């Protein structure tokens, strides 16, 4: 059942939030052992929230557009009084004294926060193998990665453990795992969703976004969490009108560009699916043409200077003084060094060092400074492209899900899986991945749509058309029975 359907039925009193929750908690209990999508399952607090939703419905109130909908939240989003580890030993046991704005808004819309999901440590990675607490498995093939860094969120939605989840995307961390798991994932325009309470990785690139099984659910969740937040200085006014309202307007006359650079180097099966999706848009009335944005090739090297640079600064605060892990030592300085050595995993250490180097005296101009200028070139290149098209289309990631362990020893190979996604973050633009068929092994493929800043409306419209034309999705291996149950469930109907 989609989130919209659940909310509809809960608001109408046809099903109780408590029943919906219990069903999903059972699925989690059955399947998460194999999946490892959740770091913390919030059974007690979720039940209390669900009971409250039911009480309000009973009292004639409307709890909101996500009434009774179970949601999974990536564990780099602060939940007051509840574990928020960022999948790192350095924050093991930390309980934030405040909620992230997006979590407040979820609850304000009636959603029930059911658990915190696994991620690459501090959101640094493309496979969720960098979690300090073990990797998550791809529901379509447990020997393979779910992608990252929001692997837990993507896997939990794909496996039917929750209908929707929140992830975060800095270089593709929502879109890439969503594509590898066969679900919908959105990175919104930078600034449209508050970062207050999102543990920072790269501040000028990070955004929180929805992961769902349907485009409509993604739009609903985006509408709920988006909008201006006075606690975030980089926050924009709410998109007007909301994304959901215009979702079904179709793509007649829309200009669509197939970006060759977002297909270069991708697997043949991926390229094929992208072209099929483009054809579906053409069949629906869009004007589809090929286009080239060569500067997109600059994006990956620029990203791997900018993101680690900001991260090296954002992660300095983990020093063993105020919260989290402390490794004792005779001096404060030694304590810092030992704590960070023990608390951070190898990928985080690598990126901190890379970033520190890129900012250091004598190298700032050549690395960080130069990357900021390249960023300007990419923004200009996109602007030129959008003079001729309304949305762009391409692959979300060059391959389908790779095997666990196959890239961990080669960081550079791992970084290359972000090549289709990082340009969007550098520009601050929105992009969405829509599942569109599978490869010969049955592994999901995602097709990516890109739009200019605040261009979510046409982007969602195109996504809805592509979704409508997509081949039937294969059920995942893990939790197939549960998905089936969720999709056809009539339990709780009165």
């Amino acid at each position, binding site marked *: 059942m989609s989130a919209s359907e659940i909310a509809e039925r809960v608001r109408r009193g046809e099903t109780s939030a408590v029943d919906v929750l219990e069903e999903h908690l059972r699925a989690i209990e059955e399947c998460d052992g194999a999946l490892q999508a959740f770091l913390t399952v919030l059974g007690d607090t979720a039940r209390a929230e669900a009971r409250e939703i039911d009480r309000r419905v009973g009292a004639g109130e409307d709890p909101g557009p996500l009434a009774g909908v179970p949601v999974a939240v990536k564990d780099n*989003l*602060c939940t007051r009084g509840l574990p*928020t580890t*960022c999948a790192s030993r350095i*924050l093991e046991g*930390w309980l*934030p*004294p*405040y909620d*992230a704005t997006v979590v407040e808004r979820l609850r304000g819309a009636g959603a029930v926060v059911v658990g915190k999901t696994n991620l690459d440590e501090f959101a640094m990675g493309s496979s969720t193998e960098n979690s300090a607490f073990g990797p998550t498995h791809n529901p379509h093939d447990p020997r393979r990665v779910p992608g990252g860094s929001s692997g837990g969120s993507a896997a939990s939605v794909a496996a039917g453990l929750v209908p929707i989840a929140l992830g975060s995307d800095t270089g593709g961390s929502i879109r890439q795992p969503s594509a590898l798991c066969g679900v919908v994932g959105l990175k919104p325009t930078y600034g449209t969703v508050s*970062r*207050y*309470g*999102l*543990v*920072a990785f*790269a*501040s*000028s690139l990070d955004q929180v976004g929805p992961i769902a099984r349907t485009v409509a659910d993604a739009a609903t969740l985006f509408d709920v969490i988006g909008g201006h937040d*006075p*606690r*975030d*200085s*980089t926050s924009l006014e709410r998109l007007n009108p909301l994304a959901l309202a215009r979702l079904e307007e179709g793509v007649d006359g829309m200009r669509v560009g197939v970006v060759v650079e977002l297909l270069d180097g991708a697997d043949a099966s991926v390229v094929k699916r992208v072209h099929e999706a483009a054809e579906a848009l053409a069949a629906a009335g869009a004007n589809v043409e090929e286009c080239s944005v060569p500067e997109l090739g600059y994006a990956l090297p620029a990203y791997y200077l900018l993101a680690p*640079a*900001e991260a*090296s*600064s954002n992660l*300095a*605060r983990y*020093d063993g*003084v*105020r*919260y989290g892990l402390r490794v004792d030592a005779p001096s*404060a*300085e030694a304590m*810092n060094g030992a704590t960070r050595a023990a608390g951070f995993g190898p990928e985080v250490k690598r990126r901190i060092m890379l970033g*520190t180097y890129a*900012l*250091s*005296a004598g190298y*700032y101009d050549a690395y*960080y400074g130069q990357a900021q200028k390249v960023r300007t070139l990419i923004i200009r290149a996109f602007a030129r492209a959008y003079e001729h098209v309304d949305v762009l289309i391409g692959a979300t990631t060059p391959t389908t899900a790779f095997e666990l362990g196959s890239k961990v020893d080669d960081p550079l190979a791992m970084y290359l899986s972000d090549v289709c996604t990082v340009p969007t973050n550098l520009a601050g633009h929105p992009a969405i991945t829509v599942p569109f068929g599978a490869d010969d092994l049955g592994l999901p493929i995602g097709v990516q749509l890109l739009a200019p800043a605040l261009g979510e409306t046409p982007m969602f419209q195109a996504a809805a058309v592509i979704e409508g034309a997509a081949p039937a999705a294969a059920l995942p291996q893990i939790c197939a029975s549960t998905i089936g149950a969720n999709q056809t469930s009539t339990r709780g109907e009165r």
Partner: protein
Amino acid sequence: MSVEGWEPVVGLEVHCELKTATKLFCGCRNAFGDEPNTNICPVCLGLPGSLPVLNMKAVEMAMSIGNALHCEVRPSLFHRKNYFYPDMPKDYQISQYDEPINVNGWLELPDGQRVGIVRAHIEEDTGKTSHMGGGGRIHDADRALVDYNRAGVPLVEIVSAPDIRSAAQARRYVEELRAILMALEASDGRMEEGSLRVDANVSVREARTDGLGTRCEIKNVNSLRSLARAIEYETERQVGLLEAGEPVLQQTRHWDEQAQKTVALRSKEEAFDYRYFPEPDLVPVAPDPRWQREVATSLPPMPAERRAKLTALLGAGETTAAQADQVATVVALGLDKLVVEAASSGVDAPLALARTANEAAADAGRALEVDPAAYGALLLMEQEGKLTPTQAKAVLADLFESGGQPQDIARRKGFEALGAENVAATVADVVSAHPEEWQRYCGGEDKLVGFFTGLVMQATDKKASGKEVAAELRRLRG
């Protein structure tokens, strides 16, 4: 050790805590002396996921400071200054680097000399560290305790050009700057509480040469007197080295108040690599022309202007050096409104000025609270002879202590100045009772005035005015 033939070249960095209600990036209270860690929140504690939001009042105060120092107020950016220290919640400080809000101004000292202001930028303060376990000496401490109440308090850092040429001039610079900051109500100027902090960059060069020698940064100066002493000491130290043929090493040095000398800090050979980059969590600040104009045109009168106003009250003639000092003192303490008020109610300006620079200044804190009209009335009573100076001072003390009206206080104390006939009568009595001394006085021994005055005071219970007694004696002598 002689420093003849050498001159110190000094630049000062003054950190001023702004008197805003809340911190720079969050709504926590900006207050001194509260219980540790009671004014903290996710933002100023740097908790994961927290974000800064800039305090408008802090920007406004920074603009006022820029205006008062004749700076160009510009669009500006925030940068991160990255380094580790336990009092830094984020292990980076949000500051301004190469695009600060105020640049290229100057400060005019009371004597007319100008000191260039390179920049005055906004940044956040750190928490406070207490080193424990070593009997008070940092070097023997076994642990440190950190209070983050101060973390995130807004600061403006004012950097002067190296235009200062003596310890005394450095002191005058800080006094004038403090007076300006207090006039703007941007600071409470309390060096002893740390709301105003001064670091000195000191180098020396041979007199009448150009060029700059190697400089040392002197920190931990907690009063104006220490500042002057530290500059003098450092000047002597550097001259001593150079005259012995040794180089001055570029160092950060601590002023040791106990030992009265500067000491090199345990070192860092490498200059610190702060890896400045633009703060991604904050957007640029570009005050629009209307806001800039509003701020620029609502500056309160500056100390220089207030000194000029007092000097004008003294009249067209030359003011004495003593009076110039009095004017400077009165304005520096913010007591000029008392003088102005008194003068406008008929008190002679020199008298108003002298009383304020002496008696009122001695109790400046309370003088700031006194009712200016009552103060003026009291001085008028003295001027009109209704109270002797001694009596006036006593009434003033009471006025500061508990307020009220001077006439009532005088009455309570039983003060009435003696009428002129009574003075003459008493003097005549005393003179006829001491004919020998009177002869000597008439013969020219003027110092006997004191003898006679003392007796008259005794006889009148100190209600006579010394001046009137002296005048009467001279009149009798002829």
